[in-house]
């Protein structure tokens, strides 16, 4: 009796026993699922495999700013258009949400009671109303704009209507590549100047006007070059032809609705994160920097923000991940992202649910992992370094 019990209560034996049991059950379940699935697929005459990716899609995608898309293109191209659209709305949304969130977080801490209350109301409303509802609401506002015939005209070149925002499309001529090269060179050199100036300041205490010289390098030098080369860029203006505009650059209301809703919703969360981050910096830091005579703006830039960032960045990363995943809600307003284009229309046309969903999920996982990877690198670079 005693020895029998001892055998089973041996930790090593139990560990192996339970893990084998779990693996066995898992394998059994997997086998069951695979066999029923293959039976079901056969019965419904659904082919398996990846060959459907090469078949023509047979539908149009209204919004594809990077790739030219025709209905004769393949499902593989639908996938690429979808990924690019997802990335477009995620990246622009993250940038806008970060800027707006930081501003609101700082305003929320303003000594002006009225202003900080106003931001508080905004934060509570946009955090507590479902994002999907906000997307649909923005979309319903945008499509109630005037029709194309009566579009609102802004500055004579932009047209706003219920079909979106029409603006002139820049056309780059041959000499424009030199300007681009100049911009890249200016970016690199201002980065180098920044490093050099920091080193010199550490050594000698002398400061160098890094900010204004960088601005000069990045904006003014390419601009001068642009005029020297004889303005190698022209604009194609949208023109009214028949019932719609022809030419020009068009930003669809689906994109605008997604962009507005995602950035406004996420900015509310980011502003709370920023607020918590700034409040986590102890009061003594502010007082100490005021005591050594730093200006108010410098205290914020040199003392408070660098310390607050250590608290802000980890939750900020999860907000970026949330925003990217939330961009999948574009399906509700017909924004042709990964889920709507490839996981929705392609899936319905080909019927290959398993393959399509596997690709969509794998893509989101890789985007999430990529964001986490880069944000972790950034996070490590701003953490407190002990010397």
């Amino acid at each position, binding site marked *: 009796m005693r020895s029998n019990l001892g055998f089973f209560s041996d930790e090593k034996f139990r560990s192996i026993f339970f893990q084998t049991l779990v693996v066995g059950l898992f394998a059994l379940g997997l086998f069951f699922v695979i066999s029923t699935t293959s039976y079901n697929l056969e019965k419904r005459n659904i082919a398996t495999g990846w060959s459907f990716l090469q078949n023509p899609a047979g539908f149009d995608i209204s919004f594809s700013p990077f790739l030219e898309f025709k209905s004769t293109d393949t499902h593989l191209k639908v996938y690429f258009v979808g990924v690019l659209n997802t990335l477009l709305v995620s990246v622009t949304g993250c940038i806008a949400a970060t800027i707006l969130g930081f501003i609101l977080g700082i305003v929320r801490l303003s000594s002006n009671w009225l202003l900080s209350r106003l931001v508080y109301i905004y934060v509570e409303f946009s955090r507590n109303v479902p994002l999907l509802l906000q997307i649909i609401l923005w979309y319903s506002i945008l499509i109630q704009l005037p029709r194309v015939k009566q579009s609102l005209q802004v500055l004579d070149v932009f047209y706003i209507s219920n079909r979106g925002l029409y603006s002139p499309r820049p056309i780059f001529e041959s000499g424009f590549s030199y300007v681009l090269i100049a911009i890249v060179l200016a970016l690199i050199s201002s980065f180098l100047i920044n490093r050099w100036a920091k080193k010199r300041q550490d050594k000698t205490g002398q400061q160098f006007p890094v900010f204004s010289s960088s601005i000069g390098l990045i904006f003014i030098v390419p601009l001068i070059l642009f005029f020297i080369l004889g303005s190698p860029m022209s604009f194609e203006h949208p023109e009214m032809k028949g019932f719609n505009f022809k030419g020009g650059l068009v930003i669809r209301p689906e994109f605008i609705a997604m962009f507005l809703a995602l950035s406004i919703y996420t900015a509310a969360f980011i502003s709370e994160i920023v607020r918590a981050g700034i409040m986590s910096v102890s009061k003594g830091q502010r007082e100490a920097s005021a005591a050594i005579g730093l200006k108010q703006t410098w205290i914020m830039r040199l003392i408070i923000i660098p310390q607050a960032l250590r608290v802000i960045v980890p*939750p900020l990363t999860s907000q970026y991940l949330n925003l990217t995943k939330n961009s999948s*809600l574009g399906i509700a307003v017909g924004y042709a992202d990964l889920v709507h284009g490839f996981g929705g229309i392609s899936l319905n046309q080909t019927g290959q*649910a398993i393959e399509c969903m596997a690709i*969509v999920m794998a893509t989101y996982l890789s985007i999430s992992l990529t964001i986490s990877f880069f944000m972790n690198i950034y996070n490590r670079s701003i953490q407190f370094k002990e010397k």
Partner: protein
Amino acid sequence: MNEMNEVRKPPVATTGIIGWLRINLFFNWTNSLITLFVIYCLYKFIPWILDWTIFSADFKYNYLGEQITNQEMCSRNLDPENGGACWAVIYVRFYQFIYGFYPKVEVWRVNVAYFMLALALLPLLYTKLPYRRYFLYFTYIFPVIAYFLLNGGLGFTEVSTNKWGGLLVTLVLGCTGIALAFPIGIMLALGRRSKLPIISMMCTLFIEFIRGVPLITLLFFGMVMLPLFLPEGIDMDGLVRVLVAVTLFQSAYMAEVIRGGLQAIPPGQYEAAKSLGMSYWRMNLLIILPQAIRISIPPIVNTSIGLFKDTTLVIIVGILDLLGIGRGTLADTNWLGLSYEIYFFVSLVFFIFTFGMSRYSLYLEKKLKTGINMGAD
């Protein structure tokens, strides 16, 4: 000497209403300008919004005194210069917003279920309730009662789930998702921290996979792929399939929150429990989990708020929750063009629930004096 003779001004007020105004609104020139600008904007905005929502709005009758039955009878459509919001659409469709297409004769069952839900939540929210233990027994059996009450059986006529809708579906999804995800989340969190490498790896993979993909792909998975995985003859209800997806999603997030709580338990607690000779399960159930769950209640409420908002996603796979009923109403030619009223109403209902939950979590945080926030939305 001259300075001594000068009459000193009285000190500026720093207390009372004047002092408060001075410190908070008119501290310096820029501050005063901002204050005046904000007041001006509010002065323009507040009367307009009050006028639109209340004073010139139609609630049941239009300005001619007729009862409104379609959008053409709204005051603002009869006379664009007269009239604001047309809340009559909410009044007319109120039944659908709250119960969906539940048969009118059977609707008392939903009302009883709503009432019982409040009763079941009471001991969870209010820990000082007298006779709390007996209320808790009721909470445990409530899901069973609610199932038979809403779905039918045990002498009740069956009401198919495709007749459910509106707030009923929102609450069923939210409550069931949270209630089912809780035990699964605990198991996943324990599994992830387990010393057994295979179990820990499987739990980690599951959690990270679910957290890495959007909920909408899981809903598609439930809708499109789940029927393929099941043997012939087993036909799952649409609502159940969505519930499976929502529960899987929520349990991964719940697991991470509970893992945070588990990590906060000092190792001495484990050692003390083990030295008393407790087994793994006894140690976790009696010593570790009660403490871990206690400190992770605020973040649990926060993820629950997130789930409650995310239940709206089910409209994409064709289930009519509160937002779905709103969109359905808008598609009706009788109520075309009343999108602001309907979205305003739906937002307000969601806001009341989620804002209430977030206030509750703040209250708990203060009570528990813990500031753990996992960054969940």
